[in-house]
């Protein structure tokens, strides 16, 4: 099992969510220590999960997506499935919680 963590912009995220796929979107900032740490955690998570797209959305560069999804701070992870938000994790989290959130 493994997936790849991809960087994408807000428009691409909307397209991906609309397909109904399971998507874990990480809204991050390049100037945030916890976001950097979460990047390594997600790389680790990606090795253990399947059937999910893990994507990173830069908070500062994607204000439309940030507003659309009411992201108030970073890092924030939103799990989408069937085109809708299923779960939200705010702040830096460890691998087990993220894996279990993805598993539902």
């Amino acid at each position, binding site marked *: 099992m493994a997936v790849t963590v991809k960087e994408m912009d807000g428009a691409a995220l909307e397209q991906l969510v609309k397909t109904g796929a399971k998507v874990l979107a990480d809204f991050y900032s390049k100037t*945030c*220590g916890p976001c*950097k740490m979460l990047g*390594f*955690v997600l790389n*680790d998570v990606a090795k253990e999960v399947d059937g999910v797209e893990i994507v990173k959305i830069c908070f500062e560069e994607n204000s439309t997506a940030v507003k659309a999804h009411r992201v108030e701070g970073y890092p924030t992870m939103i799990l989408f499935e069937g085109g809708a938000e299923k779960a939200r994790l705010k702040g830096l989290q460890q691998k087990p919680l993220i894996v279990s959130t993805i598993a539902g």
Partner: protein
Amino acid sequence: MEKTISYTRQEHIITRQARAEEALLSQLDAGDYTPQHPLVQLNPYFFAPLCALVLFHTVTPCEVTVRVLGKEPAGDMVHRFPRGTRHVLPVYGLYPGWDNQVEITLENGEKSRLSIPTGPLPDEVPQATSIDTTAAYMGDNVMVLTAAMAATPVAFDYRGDIRWYSTEKLNFDLKRRPGGHLLVGTERFVGMPYYTTGVYEMAFSGKIFKEYRVPGGYHHDHFPMEDGNLLILTQQPEAATVEDCCVLVDRDTGAILKRWDYKKVLPQDKGGSGSQDERDWFHNNAVWYDKKTNSLTFSGRHQDAIINLDYDTGDLNWIIGDPQGWPEEMQRYFFTPVGEDFEWQYEQHACMVLPDGDIMCLDNGHYRSKDPAHYAKAADSYTRGVRYRIDTEKMTIRQVWQYGKERGAAFFSCYISNVEYYKDGHYLVHSGGIGTLDGAPCEGVPAQMKQGPDGDRVQLGSITCELVDDQLVYELRVPANCYRAEKLPLYYAGEQAELGAGKVLGSLGITGEFDTPIPAEETGELVPAHYGARLVEEDDRFTFSATYEKGELVQLLLCGEDGSTHRYFINTAKQSFKAMCVGTFQKADPRDVDKVISKEGLSGRYQVKLICDDKLYETGVTVTA
């Protein structure tokens, strides 16, 4: 070139105190100390510079009376010690920067006098700007104010003269056990904004009898139960939320006997005050046990709510607060106001249950609404002591007394502060968090604004009042923010020196580790000097401190001799807090971060290393657990 970062090995204060006391007693027993020529040790326990121990022998057993001469006769501090031949006498109530005269009187009438000079007050100890009361009213009592800012705890007599202070950052509530010992939050910081290891049981001499440590840390308040066990406010260690748990701690062992988690009975996203956020959703700032109803009453600032739980089951009995914004299924817990001049409390502190079942609290009045569109400006706000009468059958509430509204914004504290009940009609109302910016009431927490860019323009204030039948009989003004006020005598009845080593009880818990490693280049170099890295190792923990750039990725590593690696994430993001009840631990440079790691769960020797972004640095320090 330096081979290690700055490293300090610090003994626990209890260990240092025990050694110092032992040395002093050895000196007493080896010498020829008499009432005329006693052994005198100022600040014997390092915590209280206005206390001395006076030690001597008498040939025959006798009682001894010690009198610290006041600046006028009414200022004398007097205490009689029990009969004996080996006299170890804590002397309280010395004046700072003063050649104190102390009179020793033996039971047979023999008198001697000694001089105990003291050093000047440190700058951080706030002095009274005014006091209005009488010696007759205060008697032997002093007013102890605990700190909300860098100011340390301090006690004022009837003239406003300082008669006790601590050089340590003893925090939050200071109260006296029925037996006489003091209970106060420790100065041992564990995490921002103000969490410390637990509670000290101590004397005004500074002698610590016990440290009650709790995993998750201590904040705001504690309450001694009739059997001596302690209720301590805390939180689940490493949890996503804070200030939402209370534990019952065994007075002898420090073991946690019982726990109440308010998340089990309250929604965390409803009924929020203007200061609520997801992490600090309740902000529990007071606890009270009522024997008659076998219930616990807690104050939650960030829900504008005083809640009452069944002691045994933890079930919610009732909520005092503005019910607006709470879900329908919770409305049955709220009271309906009856009578005239009723007002709810907002962001309150210091709830208590009075002997007749009335509920009293300090209504800070911050925002004074549940509706953001109607939040009150500081200039229109007021803080008051308020007493409510509740009928838990009819679920009605009546306001039966208040003091403070009439004083308007000049008495407004958006945070901290307390009330005390002495008897019906006799109350203390302490508004300890007053702040002005260029003379106008601060729109924000004064402790935070003082540390901000406009800090020089912020003036802090604290006004402590006592009333008898609505007549003001005491008013103390201090140019600092002070968490609580507590009136009590320095000596308790029958007090004498209690010798022997104190005990460190309870547990710090295991510090949460971070599973994910960070790939980093091993530099083989010491942490660069610009980080200002330093490590203080204690018996039960160590604290690693350094100054980072915002957004730096930092992980501390403990590399064991057995090949194990323990990883601890260090958050370098700017943290914002909507409450700063005790700003004592705020640093001038917010990039300067302390990481406290408990030694529990660790065993052996560990090299301490630091990853900053993609570089692994050495500290040259090995810690032992």
